[in-house]
Structures are given as structure tokens and as C-alpha cells.
């Protein structure tokens, strides 16, 4: 029987939630790494039993954990993220220059085909790759050394590289996104990078349509249409149909165009999900109602999904890595909140139910579809 394994990173540990394809009865396993911030966990598409986890602490630094048995047991692997050469400087919040300094791993993206290969997006923004199962890491320094690097600046959470998207068939093409520098693409396996921010407009920077400096919150892609990208920006939901060469806004009728996560239905490449958040300082749902918005038209026209989600007195946030979709026949959608709830919809978003209600604040949600 098929099923799902949901990997949840929280402020105080990791949890593994499993269910069969009905997604109604759940087993909750955890906390793993209790007391540590687990920014992200993700399983290898090439070997679902292999899962990588970013374990981090303001006190004790960065640890990377790996499981080879689907999250039952874990082993510490390499946590040495040394920038290639002299790291240089980037802008601080006040515009002054500050040296690049490694803080943590925000996102781990296992290779689509090689179980030993995994990418790490880190703060201060850089991209690393391991080809030995996370034991050692090498920076793809062409990104950080891009000529625009000295003008990159941190978003509120830090200057983090939080999105890594691998092209499904071209192993030389990757997309990444950095808060607050913008989106970048490589077509040569990470040696050189192209800023792909044309069409973005950000009122928080002096030149509103600058080449870099945009606070991109998240990018999503459907594997059947790798040239089509959907972006949740600090403000605006954006779409590109030319691999990021140009973007246009598809916020349409959303109640607010601020938010963090964005994802695409597993079987419908024009069906997109976002969670509008009131901001840019409140960071909670408008009107105290947690609503996922779904577009079946690739943007512009959005419908509120509310059944099973709290519709009063709800003031949680859903962070950028805290939404995921499974690929069962009836696509499941998952989201985690800063209030510690993880919700599932087993019917593409039509109705929702909590899997757990009282975890620590959720930082990330990923799902593995097990067959």
C-alpha cells in the first residue's frame, strides 16, 4: 500500500509523520534532535530511505544529519561549510558593508538522481554541494562571487539562500533564490550564474526594478514544465514562462499579495497554492482567518480554501519552506504553522484536517510519497 512520510522541521526538533494513502490516521515520531532548530529536512528522490536534516543552534552552530532508513535512525555527517577563498563583503541592513559569515543551512536539496549528491543553501547566502552523502561540502562559489554580490542585503531572517530547484532533465540547470538578492539561474552546473529578476518591482529598494536586491520568498516549479516558475515575493506573486528571463505579476484577487510559501499541484501544472499573510510587519493571516489560496489558472484568479482551517482568532504564520505537496493520485497538500499545527488536505486543498496541533513552531514541511 502506498503512503506518505511528512518531514517536519521545528524550532525545537524534527518530527516524522506517516500515514497510508488515505492520510487520515497518522503516526507521529519525534522529537529528533530535541532542543535544536531543524531548519529543513528532505528525502532523496533517488533513495527515499535517505533523508538529510539541517540541525542548527545559535549556541553550538551547524550540524548535518543523515538517515539511511527513512528517519528511524540518524547519523551526524559533515557540518563544515567553509567559503571558497576570501568571502568578501555584502550589504548590511543599514547599507554598510559586512563580511560574509556562515551562520546556518536553511535548505537541503537532494539530487534528483544521485543519492550521494545534495545541495545546501546557507546564510550568509551561498550554495554548497556534497557528492559523498553530506560528509564534505564544496561551495559553488561562482554564485557568491557574482559581480552583484557586494550589493546583496539580508532580509528580516538573514541573508539566506532558501530555494534550490533542480531542472528535471538538464543537470546543468539550477534555480536558486536569496533573500534579499533575488533569483539566479545557472546553465553550466553552478560555475556561472545569471540574475533572473526582470519584471520584479520592489518598493523597498532605491531602484525598484534593479537587477538584484529583491526579497524573493520562495519559487516553485512543476517538473513537467521546468521553464514555468511561480514566485512568492515579499510583495507580489509572480510568474515566469521563460525560465526566469522575465516575470509578470499574477497576484490577481488575493486579499494580500504578501506571503512566504508557494507550491504547485503534483498533477496539474497550472494549479498553484499560496498562503496570503498580512504584512509586511504583522506576518499573520488577514482577519485572523487561515486561508490557503488556490489558482487553477496559473495565477491571477484565486479561490480561498477554508474548510477545516481555523477561521477565527488565528494569528500564526506559514514560513517559506512549510508547504509541500505529495504525488498520490489525489494530490495531498501540507502546511505547517508557527503555532505548531501541521495540516493536511488529501483532496488538493478542498478540505483540511490537522495532523498535529501542538508541535514547536514549524520551520519546514516536506513530504515523501511512498509506493
Amino acid at each position, binding site marked *: 500500500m502506498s503512503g506518505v512520510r511528512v518531514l517536519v522541521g521545528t524550532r525545537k526538533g524534527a518530527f516524522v509523520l506517516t500515514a497510508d494513502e488515505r492520510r487520515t490516521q497518522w503516526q507521529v515520531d519525534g522529537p529528533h534532535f530535541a532542543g535544536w532548530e531543524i531548519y529543513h529536512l528532505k528525502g532523496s528522490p533517488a533513495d527515499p530511505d535517505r533523508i538529510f536534516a539541517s540541525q542548527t543552534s*545559535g549556541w*553550538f*552552530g551547524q550540524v548535518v544529519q543523515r538517515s539511511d532508513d527513512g528517519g528511524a535512525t540518524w547519523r551526524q555527517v559533515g*557540518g*563544515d561549510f*567553509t567559503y571558497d577563498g576570501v568571502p568578501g563583503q555584502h550589504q548590511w541592513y543599514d547599507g554598510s558593508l559586512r563580511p560574509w559569515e556562515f551562520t546556518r543551512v536553511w535548505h537541503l536539496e537532494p539530487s534528483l538522481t544521485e543519492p550521494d549528491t545534495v545541495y545546501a543553501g546557507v546564510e550568509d547566502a551561498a550554495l554548497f554541494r556534497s557528492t559523498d552523502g553530506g560528509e564534505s561540502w564544496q561551495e559553488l562559489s561562482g554564485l557568491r562571487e557574482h559581480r552583484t554580490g557586494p550589493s546583496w542585503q539580508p532580509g528580516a531572517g538573514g541573508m539566506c539562500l532558501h530555494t534550490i530547484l533542480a531542472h528535471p532533465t538538464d543537470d546543468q540547470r539550477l534555480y536558486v533564490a536569496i533573500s534579499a538578492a533575488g533569483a539566479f539561474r545557472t546553465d553550466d552546473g553552478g560555475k556561472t550564474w545569471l540574475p533572473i529578476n526582470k519584471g520584479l518591482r520592489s518598493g523597498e529598494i532605491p531602484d525598484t526594478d534593479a537587477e538584484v536586491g529583491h526579497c524573493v520568498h520562495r519559487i516553485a516549479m512543476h517538473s513537467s514544465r521546468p521553464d514555468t516558475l511561480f514566485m512568492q515575493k515579499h510583495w507580489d506573486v509572480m510568474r515566469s514562462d521563460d525560465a526566469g528571463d522575465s516575470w509578470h505579476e499574477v497576484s490577481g484577487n488575493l486579499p494580500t499579495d504578501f506571503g512566504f510559501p508557494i507550491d504547485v499541484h503534483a498533477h496539474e501544472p497550472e494549479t498553484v497554492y499560496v498562503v496570503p499573510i498580512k504584512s509586511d510587519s504583522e506576518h499573520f493571516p488577514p482577519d485572523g482567518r487561515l486561508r490557503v489560496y488556490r489558482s487553477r489558472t496559473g495565477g491571477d484568479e484565486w479561490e480561498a480554501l477554508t474548510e477545516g482551517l481555523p477561521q477565527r482568532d488565528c494569528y500564526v504564520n506559514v514560513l517559506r519552506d512549510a508547504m509541500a505537496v505529495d504525488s498520490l493520485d489525489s494530490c495531498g497538500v501540507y502546511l505547517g504553522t508557527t503555532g505548531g499545527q501541521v495540516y493536511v488536505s488529501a483532496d488538493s486543498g478542498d478540505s483540511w484536517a490537522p495532523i498535529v496541533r501542538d508541535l514547536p513552531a514549524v520551520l519546514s514541511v516536506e513530504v515523501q510519497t511512498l509506493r
Partner: protein
Amino acid sequence: MSTAETTDDGVHTVRIVLPAHLRTIAGVAGEVPVTVQGPVTTRSVLDVLETDHPRLAGTIRDRQTQRRRAFVRFFACERDLSQDEPDAPLPDAVVQGTEPFLVVGAMAGG
């Protein structure tokens, strides 16, 4: 309080007390003894600790600069040694093993 001679070439067993999270990382319970040859300093003690327990690399000191991480402190003999130079000799009682060297997570949890 007297301290050991910095030219000491002897071998000493230093008792280290780690915070719970680092005991988990290192896979140890209780105090961690380390055998230090030569001068017993914060640097030499932590060098041996990280050699004996490589998983602790980067958790107490920055991997590149070897500076103490900002939210980590070092105590011994009821003294705060966090701001001492890393090559300063540790107190005699630590060198002789009658007092432990404490690695402490800074009190910043609320």
C-alpha cells in the same frame, strides 16, 4: 589562585564538562577526560577534545577562526575564563584534575 607553568611538558588529564547538547553530539555521558601533553590551556584542551571527538568541531569554536562561539563560555574554579587568551594557562586545579573545565551554553534562553 596559582597556575601551572606554561613551559610544562608533562602529560595531564583534564576533566571537561560539556553541556547536554554537546554530550549528545559527542556520544558521551558525564565528564569527558582528555589527555593533554604540554601546557594546559583552553586551546590545547579543546584541540584534544576535538581530536578525540571530531563531531564537536565547530560547535564550541568557529571552524575557521578558532574563536569561541559567541554563546559559549568557559568556567573553572568558580571563575569565568571566557575572555582569557586561548593560550593562557588554566588553573592548577584543572591541570591536576581536581576541578573540571566547564563548557557552558550562555544563559540566553529566557
